[in-house]
């Protein structure tokens, strides 16, 4: 009898120890990103911001250490992303899935989030419907319609009446085209023509010539970031389209720093819509950019960085709220309705759609102190994703 009691006692003690040890154990975050391949740079920027956040705010939250497990999808590969998410959940026992630059990968991993009940933070993937894939998913980046529908309406307000649209022939391009055209037409404008070019398009002159032929008072363009924005900008200049006379409008990637460096003065006057630029004028942003510059050899943060940064902020704050509990139900409840001041301005998580609500900025390329900059000159506050707002109705 005595022996049994001792055994039972030690068993209970062991169990108790084990459970406290579990509570004290590290919180594991699985990051799924395209660390290699065509989109490697986007992952670099996002990961940089994540590392910087952890460096600044410490690597433990609510008394528990934060650990990262990084997985490479190598590019657009939904099957790989899904497998990696499964491995992370089953083998590595991660508590949170995060990262996700590309929409197809985020959608695929969303299934795993739903089935395994894991909190998932999408730090980029900007197609509207991504967040509908899992009830445990939040997004801290942006949606393409959020930017472009707002932009279409703005274009009409700014005086454009006849606009030609040209976009890359893939998901985000279609989203941007649809968003802009909808916003612009609902405001009363006329789309006088549109064209879709291949995603990997080395030479834009034929398409620009088509746009020029119909003599629009505005051209809306969308291309993926990377090498194409500069190529398109140069072609517009070559064909004699002056952004200061014919509005050239696009999403922020079109005039990011690297693109502007290659475009040179051809970029002057291009109007873009975006949710974040490192030139955004606020004390918090200046501090963020300074720290980022120092940590990464003078490189400026971009949209991927800000998505990663705010994603980490959301994870940290949600964990603080739950007191370190990592089950998906508690975390998603904590995330819903959360609002905070980000380097990009005030943002919040829509409690209904779990998607981001933020200020949309309209910027123009101008010369500031001898260098080309995106200068914010107008903004629309508290913009929700319009696609999901319609889906509810």
């Amino acid at each position: 009898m005595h022996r049994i009691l001792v055994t039972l006692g030690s068993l209970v003690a062991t169990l108790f120890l084990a459970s406290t040890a579990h509570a004290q154990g590290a919180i594991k975050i699985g990051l799924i990103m395209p660390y290699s391949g065509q989109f490697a740079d986007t992952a670099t920027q996002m990961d940089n911001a994540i590392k910087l956040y952890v460096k600044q705010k410490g690597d433990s939250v609510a008394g528990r250490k934060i650990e990262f497990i990084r997985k490479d999808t190598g590019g657009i590969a939904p099957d790989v992303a899904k497998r990696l998410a499964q491995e992370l959940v089953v083998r590595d026992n991660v508590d949170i899935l995060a990262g996700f630059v590309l929409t197809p990968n985020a959608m695929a991993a969303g299934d795993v989030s739903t089935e395994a009940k894991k909190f998932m933070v999408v730090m980029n993937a900007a197609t509207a419907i991504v967040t509908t894939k899992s009830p445990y998913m939040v997004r801290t980046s942006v949606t393409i319609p959020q930017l472009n529908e707002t932009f279409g309406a703005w274009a009409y307000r700014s005086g454009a009446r006849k606009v030609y649209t040209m976009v890359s022939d893939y998901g985000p391009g279609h989203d941007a085209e649809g968003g802009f055209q909808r916003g612009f037409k609902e405001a009363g404008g006329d789309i006088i023509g549109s064209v879709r070019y291949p995603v990997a398009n080395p030479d834009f002159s034929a398409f620009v010539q088509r746009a020029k032929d119909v003599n629009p008072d505005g051209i809306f363009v969308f291309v993926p970031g990377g090498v194409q924005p500069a190529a398109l900008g140069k072609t517009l200049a070559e064909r004699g389209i002056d952004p200061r006379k014919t509005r050239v409008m696009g999403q922020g990637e079109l005039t990011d720093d690297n693109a502007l460096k290659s475009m040179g003065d051809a970029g002057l006057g291009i109007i873009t819509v975006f949710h974040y630029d490192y030139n955004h004028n606020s004390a918090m942003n200046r501090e963020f950019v300074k720290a980022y510059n120092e940590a990464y050899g003078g490189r400026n943060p971009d949209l991927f960085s800000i998505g990663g940064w705010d994603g980490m902020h959301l994870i940290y704050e949600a964990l603080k709220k739950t007191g370190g509990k990592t089950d998906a139900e508690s975390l998603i409840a904590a995330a819903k309705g959360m609002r905070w001041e980000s380097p990009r301005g005030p943002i919040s998580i829509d409690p209904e759609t779990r998607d981001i609500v933020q200020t949309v900025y309209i910027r123009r390329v101008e010369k500031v102190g001898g260098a080309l900059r995106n200068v914010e000159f107008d903004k629309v506050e508290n913009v929700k994703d319009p696609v999901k707002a319609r889906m509810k109705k």
Partner: protein
Amino acid sequence: MIGPLFGVLFDGFAYGMLLFLLSVGLSVTLGMMNFVNLAHCSFAMLGGYVTVTLMNRLGWPFLATLPAAFVAAAAVSVVLERLLYRRLYRASDLDQCLLTIGIVFVSIAVAAYIFGTVQQPMQLPAYLQGSIVVMGVNFAVYRLFLVGTALAITVILVAALEYTRFGAQVRAAVDNQRMARGLGINVEGAFAVTFALGSGLAGLGGALAIPMVGLDPSFAFAYLIYVLIVVSVGGLASIGGSFAAAALLGISDMAGKYYVPQLGAFLIYLVMVGLLMWRPAGLFGKR
């Protein structure tokens, strides 16, 4: 109506010349030496990085960086040729593919390691920017420059390979190695020089391409397909063939995108399939 037509023809031709400059080196290595060098665009990428680095870090003028790009790519290729390529001259096509595709992956990783994954900014000098308008048609200055360079290179190459002693030796070495050796031709040397020439041309082509198409580590793969199309449509071992094929593909691509944008990028493949069905050995191919 005539204005846009000329515009499209010119742009297409200039785009074709861009393809030609990128691929002419391959028609030397693949065409003359029969080596399936899929790493061709890695040498082009190297040339691109040399140009960008010299311009942005050391402040060289653009034109001065072009010979440097040629020399750098040629020099690196000689090292690789001595170390790796040489061993596979008589191997099967598949072995050559495996080796060179491996080199492509390595080159992408090395470029990403040294220069980062970011796209490299590069700004043309003012005299190569903008466009001139003749009778309502826009001629971009840089495109004119590309056309001029491509024509010059064609003339020089054809002259060098067809009418010089060295060219004759190379052609002899390729056509019948044993016979050439028997005649006292230094086959090894001829191959090394030819390979360096082809790679140097790739480097030059890369340097000339980046002002239009940009540069990041994925460059080594992104243009491989176009380059292979040009060489196969043109016919192996034919500089003139590559020139004609590049011009034809460039113009049809541009015209297709202008007049039937729904077909978009597909037309270039359609043209390739059509041409190869009509002439399986390529436009000017002999074998």
